[in-house]
Structure formats: structure tokens, C-alpha cells
């Protein structure tokens, strides 16, 4: 794929991450911030995938996979904490 298209799409995805971070700053309750963090992390996974396509390095995909795994574990830990405390 051509590099210019991938860079444009990377810019759009970065704008999405900034919107998620805005909700992370504003969110009135703790679950709001957790939702914003989860969304920002998943969109960051997509950003890493696009960077892997741009630089043609499959190492970025390993990073994306581990990032998705850590996002899931962190989210489940936060959900259990909200449910019944530590």
C-alpha cells in the first residue's frame, strides 16, 4: 500500500485517540474513565498495526498483540474492583 494513504489514516486514528483522552480527562465517574482508557488502548492497537504496515516490520504486530492482552487484563481488573472492592 502507498505510504501517503497509510500516513493519512494514521493521522485520523490519532485524532480518535485524542478524543478518547479528552473523555479520560473530563469523565465524571471512574467507569467513564475506564471506558475511555479501554477505547484509547484498542485504537492504539489499530495505530500500531498501521505503523507495522507503513514500516513493513512485523515486530509492531507483536507489540500490538501484547498491548491488546494487557488492555484486556487491566480492564477486567478494574471491573472487578468496581464490583466488590479490592
Amino acid at each position, binding site marked *: 500500500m502507498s505510504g501517503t494513504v497509510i500516513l493519512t489514516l494514521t493521522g485520523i486514528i490519532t*485524532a480518535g485517540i485524542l478524543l478518547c483522552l479528552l473523555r479520560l480527562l473530563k469523565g465524571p465517574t471512574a467507569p467513564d474513565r475506564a471506558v475511555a482508557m479501554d477505547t484509547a488502548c484498542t485504537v492504539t492497537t489499530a495505530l500500531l498495526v498501521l505503523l*507495522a504496515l507503513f514500516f513493513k516490520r512485523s515486530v509492531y504486530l507483536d507489540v500490538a498483540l501484547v498491548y491488546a492482552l494487557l488492555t*484486556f487484563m487491566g480492564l477486567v481488573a478494574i471491573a472487578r474492583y468496581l*464490583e466488590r472492592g479490592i
Partner: protein
Amino acid sequence: MNSGVTPYILISIGVAFDLVGAIGLIRLPDVYNRLQAATKCVTLGTALILLGVVAASGWSAMGIKALLAAVFVLWTSPTGSHALARGAHIAGVPLWSGSVIDKYKEDTGR
């Protein structure tokens, strides 16, 4: 890497879904609405981007890793969001004032 038009279409649709999910996260009124907008749009968008990478790279190391990541995202993202919605409801986060029904409260009495 083959140079068809399929990867462009898949990745563009995925990026559009991701952006719509982020906008929904800003615009919607309470945590449950934000959760459904963000989860559905962002899960589908990220999975479409990963499938676009699979279509672009074929059966190479990159394509197989992207396919694994797509399966993983489709599997774990709804699970985590379900756990978070349940945790938020049990923690007592109120619904938006315009909400008309609360089936979880009716079913469990909490």
C-alpha cells in the same frame, strides 16, 4: 504484498468506524451509552483494520500475526466491556435521566 484495492477499502472502513466510536465516546450522555458506542464501533473497526493487513500481506509472518490479533480483539473486547458495564451497574453509577428501562435492576433487584 499484492496491490489490490481490497486492503484500502477494509482499512478505510475500519478507520472510519474507529473515529465514529471515539466521537460517540465524546457525545453520548452516560457511561452505558458511551460503553456501547465505543465497544461496538472500536471492536469492529480494529478488526477490520487487522483484516485489511491480512489482505495486504497474505500468508506471511505479518498476515498470520494480524489474523491472530484480529481473533484476539474480537474475543476479548466485548468480554471486557461486559465486565465493565456490570461493574459500573453494581458500583451504583446512575443511568441517564432519559433512559426508559433497566432490565438488570428488574432481573436482580439491585
